[in-house]
């Protein structure tokens, strides 16, 4: 009985979260007639027209490329910087480290809308509007505090002994980081990287105001601009949204094992 209730709850929660996605997925395979039919048609006739239209007529692939470039650059740069910063915060006995982390947490809670104006003016001033580096800089500013916070907690849990053993065994600080600390911190680094990537991939608001040239726009903005003055291409939007979700799912599945892996288990004591 208990088991049954548990399974029911899991099913219900799963359905609740997946239903909107499922509806889009089904919509992407419907014909225009099926989409607007009343009463609604649930099971589609599995046409690939919408996908073709999204790619050929709306330039979906080129939005994907933009998103990939922006999200990858954001992730690589912010994780690299955050790794070093968090290591220093976690390791060196800095008196102000606690306060600094509090400040970072407070920063990452700032509502986007509150700083949208200043960010836009700043980028406009340095001439970075409508550029990859402009949007990436803005994203990094948001991703860094979060990544530093996540990684610091992770580094703090790594036993210091292991690093010291490496220093005595003949490592320089850099070698100890590269050969011992980062491999051990891999699950944490991957977790932070995936979260940053997802955030950058999905971000809409900044992309909308910073990137006004269609050639540079990312997926969320691109899809949002699919509707024309007199048309609402639901089928194409659904197809594009499905395609936009695939890389995220793939990434998560790919790195799931690494994230879960408790590499440092058994390192110390026993």
């Amino acid at each position, binding site marked *: 009985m208990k088991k049954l209730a548990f399974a029911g709850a899991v099913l219900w929660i799963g359905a609740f979260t997946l239903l909107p996605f499922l509806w889009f997925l089904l919509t992407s395979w419907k014909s225009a007639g099926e989409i607007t039919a009343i009463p609604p048609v649930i099971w589609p006739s599995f046409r690939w027209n919408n996908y073709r239209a999204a790619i050929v007529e709306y330039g979906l692939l080129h939005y994907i490329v933009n998103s990939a470039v922006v999200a990858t650059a954001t992730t690589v740069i912010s994780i690299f910087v955050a790794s070093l910063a968090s290591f220093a915060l976690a390791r060196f006995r800095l008196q102000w480290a606690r306060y600094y982390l509090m400040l970072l947490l407070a920063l990452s809670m700032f509502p986007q809308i509150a700083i949208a104006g200043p960010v836009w003016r700043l980028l406009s001033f340095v001439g970075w509007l409508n550029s990859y580096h402009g949007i990436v800089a803005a994203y990094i500013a948001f991703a860094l505090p979060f990544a530093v916070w996540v990684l610091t907690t992770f580094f703090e849990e790594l*036993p210091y*002994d*292991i690093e*010291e*053993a*490496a*220093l*005595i*065994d*003949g*490592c*320089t600080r850099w*070698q100890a980081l590269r050969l*011992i600390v980062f*491999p*051990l911190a891999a699950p944490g680094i991957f977790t932070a990287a995936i979260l940053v990537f997802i955030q950058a991939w999905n971000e809409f608001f900044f992309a909308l105001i910073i990137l006004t040239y269609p050639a540079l726009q990312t997926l969320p903005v691109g899809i949002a601009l699919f509707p024309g003055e007199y048309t609402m291409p639901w089928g194409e939007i659904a197809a594009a949204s499905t395609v936009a979700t695939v890389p995220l799912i793939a990434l998560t599945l790919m790195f799931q094992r690494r994230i879960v892996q408790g*590499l*440092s*288990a*058994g*390192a*110390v*004591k*026993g």
Partner: protein
Amino acid sequence: MKKFGATSVLEDISFEAADGEFCVLLGPSGCGKTTLLRIIAGLESANGGTVHIDEQRVDLLPPRDRDVAFVFQNYALYPHMTVAENLGFSLRLRGAPQKEIKERIAEIARLLELGSQLDRKPQQLSGGQRQRVALGRAIVRQPKLFLFDEPLSNLDATLRSNMRVELARLHARLRATMVYVTHDQAEAMTLGEKIIVLNRGQIQQIGTPAETYHRPGNLFVAGFVGQPQMNFIQGRVIDGSVLVAKSGMNLDLTRILLDDRLKVSPIDFTIGIRPEDLRPCSRSEAWFSGIADFVEDLGSDCFVHVMANGEKLIARAAGRTPIRRGDEVFLHSEPERVHIFHGDKRVE
């Protein structure tokens, strides 16, 4: 000298380990012994003073340039590497040829009986095996100096005494200079050639195990080394013949002390007698008489806790002693086994 903020944890420490010597830093937790070891290794920097290894001043060098090996209390193995990789890591860093690394690993594995574990990861090993790998990682480099930070404290009792013997054998074989930190006086006595007793960041005594045990230089060493603890009787000596203890017990010294160590009078002294030197005897031979409060039977012998006119004494009796709780007990020792302290210092 080492300071953490305003608290000074080590002060005015100076000692030397001879080439090939097994040197033990012994002291209670928090006495600064681990900090001292870390200063030698270069993991911690001192606020003053110097460290020399082989006549070379090393305290300004990073750990990797000091040519020391460190065995950590928690083993600190690299969890993402196999046993073989753990053992060979330092050689790889130094750019040793593959063939030599392989040979050295094989040799260490044979020495420490790790042959069948080489491809395993640390988390697949038992505590004793991990300890062995940690040891092997130190040995493989043939360093000038081995540093051990309570390496056996995470092992269970049987394994600990086995590893103790193995360590002693290893030292005899390698004849390497070793500095070993422990709070376990049994480890210090069995392993050490030189024992440095530390308390509150200061050296209390430097000597061989026998010296620290049989001729403790002060009250701290006398109380810290030896299990169960030495019996202490604090009091004031009158005319060099009677000790009036703080508890009120009067002790006739004419039988106990044949020399003139206490001939200055009246003055405060502490008399110390080890439990194993205090034995049950007949009424006529007795130095102390009292009531047995508790009998600890260890099989091979028994420790009898005696209340003698307000002084709590522990004496060793033979195994299966007939003494029971509540019995009247008479105790004596031999004059040459009596330690005398004035203030904190030993009186010779």
